[in-house]
Each structure stands twice: as structure tokens, then as C-alpha cells.
């Protein structure tokens, strides 16, 4: 009976999935509703979770409910806390979900909604969720060791140091590109800038409250904080139009300096004063907004305006250049597969797992959830007016800064009809001076969300409120990630620096602290400044770099997982992590090599540098540069970016080489050589205690 019921239920799930994919893929010309995207994703997630993740849990990892987890063995109520499955799922999801799955899919929407949807759904099932689950498992079996330490332990010290340098570099690039998104969203937007600035005094107030007035009551103060934030959004418009509104009307370079100074101060101050309360706010706001967006998409059920596939799959797109393969797989990193999750899955989560079997739901299930967020972001972007989408995401070099000119270019050159009136009206609706060239994904998503949410609650009059709400929510957790990342980078720099000068590693020393923080901020600040002043818009060059870095880290994590499986004598199942590892490596290396050696200067950093330096030598000025100085800046940025690409590629290649060497060595011996913490079993402990 049970068997029959399961057959019927799963048969239905398969049917829904097939119907959704057929609708998505075969609709040509007519517009379909976003609900098909959502249902296609959910049905695949269900099937993958029910069957594939069970296979991994039972056969590949052989999760043992009787084997004690570190949380059970050490249970100190502080670092090692056995936590129920649902609660830990929430904790883990809150830690992995960030701006990445919201931004990447929005950028990738230029190729149409279909390629992005397929990559997000199948990427997560076969690569992303597998990576998160296996890394969580590997770290849990080693008392919650971090990714860098596991690589060092299992692949040798050289691979460990190389991986640690790679991790530091990827963090720097992530902070720069995230901060760049905030800057792009806030340029000459006094309303938005005011609401972000208002989070600082609100956080200070919250910090003092939880420290001195009612310690530990973070729930009540977070509610007060959210209400204060809402007031800041509502009255932000009045502030923007008031006599001191010009104070918040900043250009890109001013915003860059503001964010850098703020990041430095926030990382140096005691964490309880500024960082932690903002962390509370951003965490709760993030979860709330994701839930609201899900309800919005299901209830409002917007129509997808974007075609299934656009002509830009050939690589000529204005948002980012490069053809579908490999650049779609680089642009959408988080949501499909994200190397950064390997850091989270080997952070605090493995120390809190209550039972080994929970790894399946927390690791695999948590990543499916993040992928769902990416699908919703893609749906929100694809349901925008296509002309508006390209107006917001194309660089000023292409569409100019004037609505009439932009409308003409988008209609005639890009082939998506849009009128000047539409663009002006949209800017007016969301309360901005202009919506042109607000690249970076966040503003586009904000318009998409405002479009959906204003149909759900309170009508078109509230569009501007929802736009600024969405902007605030993204900027808030981006800035929290940047501040926290700066602190993490500080510790890493002190750690690396102590190799050369011992006292530098002392984390209690104020001079060492200030110097390491200064180095950290300068590193990401450099790339941020270069991105903001880049005449080509910055996102164009920094986002692919971020994607390559993130996928490279995923490659390193999956190689480590494969080596551990071989060392555990589970060679039969190694394909589960080895196939996605090879796929990711192939895509990353292919994209990296194209970024270096492609003949098209729009794609390759080196060809681009060549083109501009040749022109500069002939005394010519190429658009979008306006001066000889801008010309040389473009060339310099290109060389820095190519250097980084080479660095990322060599990290992957070196780790892969060491992985192969260690795996071959492990195959020669007949017993498992993985360095797990010795197992203790539940019944043994019970016997011992009785």
C-alpha cells in the first residue's frame, strides 16, 4: 500500500516537472507565467532530494546514526552544541544565503530565462548541493575543521598553503565586487544613501541596548531596529528633498571612500557595538524578505517578459561579454554551485550537528533552498519589462546617460522596443533621478521586487517604498558581509604575516590589528576603486573574476572531497564528487583562458589591454576613455585582472595536481587512509555508562 502511494505521489511530481519544463522550453513567441519556473525547480528539487541525496547519504557517505557527532562528544554548550535538525537548518541557511544568488541570476537574465534556469536547477542538484553536503560530512568527521585545515591535512602542506592564499584572494575579490554593487546602486541616489547611512546610528543604539540595557534580548531589539529602518525608508524621501539632502547625493568615488572608511572603522571597533547588531538586522530582514518574495511570486504570478533565449548567447550581450559557454556558468555561481559554501559548511555548522544523518537535510537541503532563492531572483528579473532591464544593466558607454538616447539604442541596436516615456516613468515610480546603467544586479532586482510586491501589498503608489526597501535589504547584508569579511581578512593577514614577523600575529596588539585591517581594506578598496572609476563600468570585469574565483574554490573543495572518498576506500562512488569537480575545473579553466587569450577584446583582458595600449601609443583616445590618463588606467586594470586570473588558475591546477598524487598513493594501500577522528558509537557509550 505504502509502495503504491509513494509511486503515485512521485509519479505526479515527475509529471509536474515534465509539464513545467516542456512549457518553459517550448514556449516561443507567447509569454508564460513565472510559476512554471518555480514548479520546474521545486519538482526537480523534490526528486533529487528524495533519491539522489538519499543515495549519497546511504551509499557514498554511509552516514551512521549510531556514530557520535562532535557536538555529542564535546557538548560544551558553546562551540559544540547538539542542535535539532530544523533549527540547525535555519542557522545554516542564514549563513549561506547572501547577495550572490540574488545578483548572478539577474545578470545572466540577458541570455533569456531558460539557460539560467536550467543551470541553476541542474547545477545545484549535481554539483552545489553535493559539495555542501560532502564538505559538511568531511568536516564533521574531523571535529569541525576548516576547509584550509582539511586540505592541509589530507592533501599535504603545500596544497594547504596554496588553498589558504586562494581563500584570502577570493574573499578580497568578493568584498570588492559586493561593495561595487552597493556603490552602483547608491550613486546620486540621496534617498537610498540616507537609508543606508541611517543603519549606522540604529545599529549603535541596538548594540548599546543589548550590551547595557537588556543584555541578550536580541529579538525585541531587532524588532525595534526593523521598525526604525522602515521609518528611515519612509522619511528618506523627505530627507532627500530637504535642504541637507545634497549631503547624501554622492558620486561613485565619494561613496567608495565612505565605504572604505566605514569598513575600516567597523572592523576595528568592538564587534558588539556595530557589527553584531547589524548582523542581527540583516539576518532577520534577509529571511523575512526571501519569504515575502516567495509569497509574492506565487500570489502575483508575474508573466515572464524576457524571451526564453535571447540572441546574446553568442557573447555580444551588453551586461557581460562572453558566450553562453563558459560564461553563464561563471556568472551564476551562488545558487548553482558556490565554493564559498565550503567555508561555511566547514565552519560552525559541523560542530552543531546532532546526528550524522542530519547532514543530508542540512547540507543538501540547505543548498537546494538557496538555489530556490536564485530561481526567484531570476523570475523577478525576467518579469521586468525587457527594455527596462537592458536600460538598467547596459554600461553608459553603450546607451549614454540620456533617456531618449538610451531608448533609441535599446530599441534599435539591442532589438528590445522601449520608449523614453517608459524609462522616465519607471525612474519616477521608484523615486530615482535615473535608472540608466545601474549595473550590478541589485537595483534591477529591487525594481523587479518592487514590481511584484506593489501588486501584492498597497498598489503602485508604494513602488518607491518597495524599491528602497529591497535596495536597503541588499545593501545591508552586503555591507555586513564586507565588514565581517574585513575582520576575517585581518585575522588571515595577521596569520600569514606572523610567518615573517612573529609579533604581527598577536591578535590583541592594537598596532598589528590596525595595520592588518588597513592592509585588508586597502586590498579590496583598490579593486573597488578601480571598478568604480573603470570607464567600462567595473561590473563587466570584476563579476567574471568573482565567478572564476568562487568556482575555483568549489573546484578545490570538490577535489578535496574526491580525495577523501578515495582515501576512505569508496572509489566506487568517487564519481559523485569527481564528475562535478572535473566539470567545474573545465569550465573555470576554459573561462579563465578565454579571459586571458581570447581574440575578442571585449572578452579577453590581454587583448583589451593590447588594443588600448596600441591606440595610446599612436596618441589616439578610444571610447569610453576620454583622456590619455583613463586610457592607461584601463590598460593597468586589464593587467591586474589578468594577473589575478593567472593566480586563480594556478591555485586550481596545483591543488588538482596534489589531489591526484595523494589519491594515486592512497589507492596503492589496501586500507582506508583518511584522517578521520576515531569513531565512538552510541551503544558503546551506553554500555560504558551503565
Amino acid at each position, binding site marked *: 500500500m505504502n509502495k503504491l502511494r509513494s509511486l503515485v505521489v512521485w509519479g505526479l511530481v515527475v509529471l509536474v516537472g515534465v509539464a513545467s519544463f516542456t512549457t518553459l522550453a517550448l514556449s516561443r513567441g507567447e509569454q508564460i507565467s513565472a510559476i512554471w519556473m518555480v514548479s520546474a525547480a521545486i519538482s526537480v528539487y523534490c526528486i533529487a532530494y528524495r533519491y539522489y541525496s538519499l543515495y549519497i547519504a546511504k551509499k557514498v557517505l554511509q552516514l551512521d546514526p549510531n556514530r557520535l557527532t562532535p557536538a555529542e562528544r564535546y557538548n560544551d*554548550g558553546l562551540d559544540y552544541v547538539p542542535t535539532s535538525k530544523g533549527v540547525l537548518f535555519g542557522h545554516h541557511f542564514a549563513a549561506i544565503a547572501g547577495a550572490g544568488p540574488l545578483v548572478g541570476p539577474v545578470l545572466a537574465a540577458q541570455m533569456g530565462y531558460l539557460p539560467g534556469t536550467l543551470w541553476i536547477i541542474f547545477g545545484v542538484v549535481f554539483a552545489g548541493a553535493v559539495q555542501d553536503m560532502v564538505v559538511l560530512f568531511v568536516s564533521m568527521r574531523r571535529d569541525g575543521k576548516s576547509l584550509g585545515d582539511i586540505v592541509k591535512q589530507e592533501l599535504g602542506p603545500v596544497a594547504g598553503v596554496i588553498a589558504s592564499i586562494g581563500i584570502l584572494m577570493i574573499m578580497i575579490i568578493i568584498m570588492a565586487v559586493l561593495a561595487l554593487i552597493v556603490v552602483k546602486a547608491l550613486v546620486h541616489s540621496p534617498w537610498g544613501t540616507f537609508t543606508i547611512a541611517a543603519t549606522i546610528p540604529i545599529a549603535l543604539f541596538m548594540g548599546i541596548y543589548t550590551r547595557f540595557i537588556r543584555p541578550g534580548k536580541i529579538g525585541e531589539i531587532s524588532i525595534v531596529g526593523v521598525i526604525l529602518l522602515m521609518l528611515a525608508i519612509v522619511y528618506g524621501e523627505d530627507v532627500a528633498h530637504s535642504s541637507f539632502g545634497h549631503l547624501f547625493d554622492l558620486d561613485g568615488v565619494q561613496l567608495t571612500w565612505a565605504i572604505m572608511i566605514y569598513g575600516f572603522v567597523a572592523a576595528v571597533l568592538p564587534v558588539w557595538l556595530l557589527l553584531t547588531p547589524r548582523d542581527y538586522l540583516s539576518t532577520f530582514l534577509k529571511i523575512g524578505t526571501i519569504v515575502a518574495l516567495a509569497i509574492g511570486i506565487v500570489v502575483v504570478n508575474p508573466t515572464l517578459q524576457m524571451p526564453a533565449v535571447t540572441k546574446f548567447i553568442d557573447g555580444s550581450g551588453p551586461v557581460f561579454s562572453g558566450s553562453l559557454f563558459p560564461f553563464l556558468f561563471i556568472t551564476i555561481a551562488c545558487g548553482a554551485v558556490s565554493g564559498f559554501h565550503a567555508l561555511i559548511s566547514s565552519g560552525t555548522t559541523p560542530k552543531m550537528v546532532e546526528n550524522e544523518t542530519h547532514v543530508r537535510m542540512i547540507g543538501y537541503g540547505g543548498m537546494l533552498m538557496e538555489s530556490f532563492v536564485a530561481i526567484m531572483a531570476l523570475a523577478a528579473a525576467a518579469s521586468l519589462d525587457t527594455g527596462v532591464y537592458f536600460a538598467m544593466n547596459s554600461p553608459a558607454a553603450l546607451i549614454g546617460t540620456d533617456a531618449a538616447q538610451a531608448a533609441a539604442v535599446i530599441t534599435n541596436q539591442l532589438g528590445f522596443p522601449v520608449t523614453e516615456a517608459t524609462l522616465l516613468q519607471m525612474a519616477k515610480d521608484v523615486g530615482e533621478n535615473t535608472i540608466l546603467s545601474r549595473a550590478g544586479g541589485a537595483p534591477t532586482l529591487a525594481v523587479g521586487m518592487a514590481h511584484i510586491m506593489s501588486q501584492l501589498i498597497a498598489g503602485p503608489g508604494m513602488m518607491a517604498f518597495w524599491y528602497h526597501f529591497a535596495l536597503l535589504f541588499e545593501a545591508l547584508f552586503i555591507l555586513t558581509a564586507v565588514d565581517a569579511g574585513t575582520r576575517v581578512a585581518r585575522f588571515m593577514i595577521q596569520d600569514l604575516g606572523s610567518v615573517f614577523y612573529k609579533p604581527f600575529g598577536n591578535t590583541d596588539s592594537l598596532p598589528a590589528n590596525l595595520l592588518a585591517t588597513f592592509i585588508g581594506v586597502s586590498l579590496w578598496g583598490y579593486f573597488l576603486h578601480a571598478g568604480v572609476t573603470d570607464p567600462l563600468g567595473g561590473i563587466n570585469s570584476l563579476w567574471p573574476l568573482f565567478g572564476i574565483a568562487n568556482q575555483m574554490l568549489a573546484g578545490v573543495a570538490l577535489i578535496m572531497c574526491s580525495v577523501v572518498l578515495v582515501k576512505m576506500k569508496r572509489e566506487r562512488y568517487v564519481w559523485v564528487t569527481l564528475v562535478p569537480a572535473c566539470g567545474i575545473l573545465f569550465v573555470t579553466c576554459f573561462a579563465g583562458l578565454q579571459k586571458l587569450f581570447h581574440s575578442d577584446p571585449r572578452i579577453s583582458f590581454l587583448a583589451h589591454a593590447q588594443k588600448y595600449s596600441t591606440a595610446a601609443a599612436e596618441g589616439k583616445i578610444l571610447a569610453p576613455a576620454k583622456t590619455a590618463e583613463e586610457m592607461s588606467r584601463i590598460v593597468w586594470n586589464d593587467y591586474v585582472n589578468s594577473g589575478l586570473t593567472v593566480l586563480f588558475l594556478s591555485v586550481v591546477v596545483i591543488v588538482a595536481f596534489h589531489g591526484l598524487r595523494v589519491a594515486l598513493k592512497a589507492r596503492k594501500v589496501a586500507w582506508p587512509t583518511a584522517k578521520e577522528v576515531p569513531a565512538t558509537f552510541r551503544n558503546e557509550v551506553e554500555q560504558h555508562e551503565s
Partner: protein
Amino acid sequence: MSLKQKLSQRWQSIRQAANLMAGLPDYNNYVIRQRRHNPNAPVMSEQQFQDYCSKRRCGSNGGKCC
């Protein structure tokens, strides 16, 4: 168990889940664990406990996702 007790228990677990999402485990549980392991071991005050947790969250192995 009365409905009121059930609701209050439910509320407690939601509160704990929300606190943990923000990186703060349950303080009472920590004190109980410390006492059980070693009755003479020093136990952090609630404020020290909070400080430890927030530092850990932004520490060398903390970090947030993109």
C-alpha cells in the same frame, strides 16, 4: 500538557532558533553543560558569553557568504 504550555514551549524553540540564526546559542544550556562537566570550572557571564559568540562569528573561521 496544556495548550498554554505547548505554545510557550513552541515560542521558546522559535526564539532559540532565531537567536542561533544570529549566532547566539542558548546561555542557560551553556551554564548547565559547563557545570555538569566540571563544577569548579569558570563559567562566563552572559555578557562575556555574548561577546565570545559575536567575536567568533566575525572571527578567523566565521565569515558570511556572498
